[in-house]
């Protein structure tokens, strides 16, 4: 079901947490709400499921305006970071709870619970209590409970944050698989860009209660709208250096570096101070501009190495390259970058 937040705002007392947000989630899509801690992701989620009242604006499920519909009637499935399983109930009772509330016949409940348990692969755990399950298993139970009543939308609030790295990888693909199999519309709240990029059809990136950009992961990575977006996506993260437009080139002060202005960038008037973003994978052996610096740190990652190079003005850029034997710590190097892979931002962070 399509979900639409229409000029939605939320204040707690006098503090405005979400400011005039408009966001559409298409039917059957999985959208990531990505942003730093405290930017209002959970608040948005709570507004969608009706636990918080909206201060202004509307929320539509399909064509139905649910702004003033109670949470119970919205039929929203929620998976919390802490899973919020009911500790005094067995797994079976947990999954059956939403159905019991709806007074479904026992036989029907049993069948639906079993089917759902099969879907999330916990068929053998049905008679345990939550405390007797691993984190990943609890996560599956929470998913089953959220999905069993066929909700209009599935909301996931940092579902993977409490899992260890290996389980996180596993559950990432599991959640995606289940979402695809059920075809449910889903919103995933996360502050982990890898999660957002690997699991979702589209990403809505948030900061300070506003949506900065909505796009597919690829598009957003290739074409970030602001320095904030560029900085949020990518691991290791993009590096920024200050420069000034001079003679049709970008001069980095005190570093003896001159970079060409990317073709797609707007015209940059002479003397404008700008911020140049360079992704680590774009700094290497190929390109039309040269960057000189000293290797100040080498981090071995196995197949690749991560190099920090310190420019003459003290700024640090990162480069990720296959392991090279010809570079060692403290070497002076001159590496290259392609001008069409540079991101140019104004001082206020807007992309130029």
């Amino acid at each position, binding site marked *: 079901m399509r979900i639409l937040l229409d000029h939605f705002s939320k204040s707690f007392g006098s503090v405005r947490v979400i400011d005039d947000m408009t966001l559409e989630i298409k039917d059957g899509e999985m959208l990531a709400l990505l942003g730093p801690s405290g930017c209002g992701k959970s608040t948005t989620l709570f507004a969608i499921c009706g*636990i918080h009242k909206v201060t202004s604006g509307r929320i539509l499920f399909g064509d139905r305006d649910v702004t003033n519909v109670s*949470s119970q009637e919205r039929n929203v499935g929620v998976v919390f970071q802490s899973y919020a399983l009911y500790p005094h109930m067995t797994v079976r009772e947990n999954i059956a709870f*939403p159905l019991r509330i709806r007074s479904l016949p026992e036989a029907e409940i049993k069948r639906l619970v079993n089917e759902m348990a099969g879907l999330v692969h916990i068929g053998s755990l049905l008679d345990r209590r939550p405390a007797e399950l691993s984190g990943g298993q609890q996560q599956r139970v929470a998913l089953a409970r959220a999905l069993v009543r066929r909700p209009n939308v599935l909301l996931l609030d940092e579902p993977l944050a409490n899992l260890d790295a290996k389980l996180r990888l596993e559950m990432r693909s599991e959640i995606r698989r289940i979402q695809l199999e059920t075809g449910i519309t889903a919103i995933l709240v996360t502050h982990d860009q890898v999660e957002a990029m690997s699991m979702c059809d589209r990403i809505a990136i948030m900061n300070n209660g506003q949506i900065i950009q909505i796009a597919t992961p690829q598009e957003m990575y290739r074409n970030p709208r602001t320095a904030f977006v560029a900085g949020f996506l990518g691991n290791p993260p993009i590096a920024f250096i200050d420069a000034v437009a001079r003679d049709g080139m970008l001069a980095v002060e005190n570093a003896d570096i001159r970079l060409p202005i990317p073709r797609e960038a707007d015209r940059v008037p002479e003397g404008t101070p700008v911020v140049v973003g360079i992704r680590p994978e774009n700094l290497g052996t190929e390109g039309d501009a040269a960057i000189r610096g000293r290797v100040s740190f080498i981090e071995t990652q196995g197949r690749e190495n991560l190099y920090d190079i310190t420019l003459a003005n003290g700024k640090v850029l990162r480069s990720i390259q296959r392991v090279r034997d010809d570079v060692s710590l403290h070497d002076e190097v001159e590496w290259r970058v392609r001008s069409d892979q540079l991101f140019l931002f104004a001082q206020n962070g807007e992309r130029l």
Partner: protein
Amino acid sequence: MTGHLKSWPFVLALSIISAPIVLMYSYLFIDTITNSPPGSFIPHEFTLEHWRFLWETRPGKPSIWRVTLNSFLFASSSCLVVLVVSSTAGYVLSRLNVPGRAFFLAGVMVLHAFPAVTLIVAIFLVLQMVGLYNSLIGVILVKAAIDMPLGIWIMKGFYDTVPWEIEMAGIADGASRFTVWRKLVLPQVKPGLFALGLFAFLLGWSEFILPQVLAPGGDVQVLSVYLAGLIADDNNFDMAMFKSVGLFYIAPVLILFLFFQKYLMNIYGGGTKG
């Protein structure tokens, strides 16, 4: 536990200052089943005669079993009322957005600290006016009301520890707030209910001044009033018998206390905090 000094001086000091208590409680046991020669405290014979009161009812006094039943009814009913009131009101104060919540919470704290005994004159007159004087119902309600603020406070503390996400999940699952409380939250505070129930029962079992003032009659007498009456009766001074009745009366308290001392100490320490 740290420190570089030995701990035995402390043990010794504590033993000395604790001696009177140990002595008194030991003799509470010893004297009920032995006789000692006059002027001595070393028992010289075993006897059960001090327990006669169990099968012999004194003239003019109610039967001990009647009194025990009254005590039990009094303690368990007031405990039940406290549990019901505290489990509902505690939830409201912990979780629900009702007008005047902060005010009510402050009120509970004032009442909790408030000297209920000062109200006893007015309560006495009110019960007389409405005809509940000398009835168990009246004194049960009063006792429950007086223990209620602490109960609400304790239950609020327990409710505060239930994660909000559980309730949010319940609501998203389609349960009404009542169902959420009844089916999802209440089961999580069972330890709290147990501890409070135990505590309230013991408070009721031990209560003296309320039944003494509000329900002194023979039919509704509870153990504390009965025992105090025995002691105050100058014609029959029999310390060993008093102690036997006392031991009979205190036994449930001691047993419950020894089994559940952690719970109870926490309530005395933590429950009254704040």
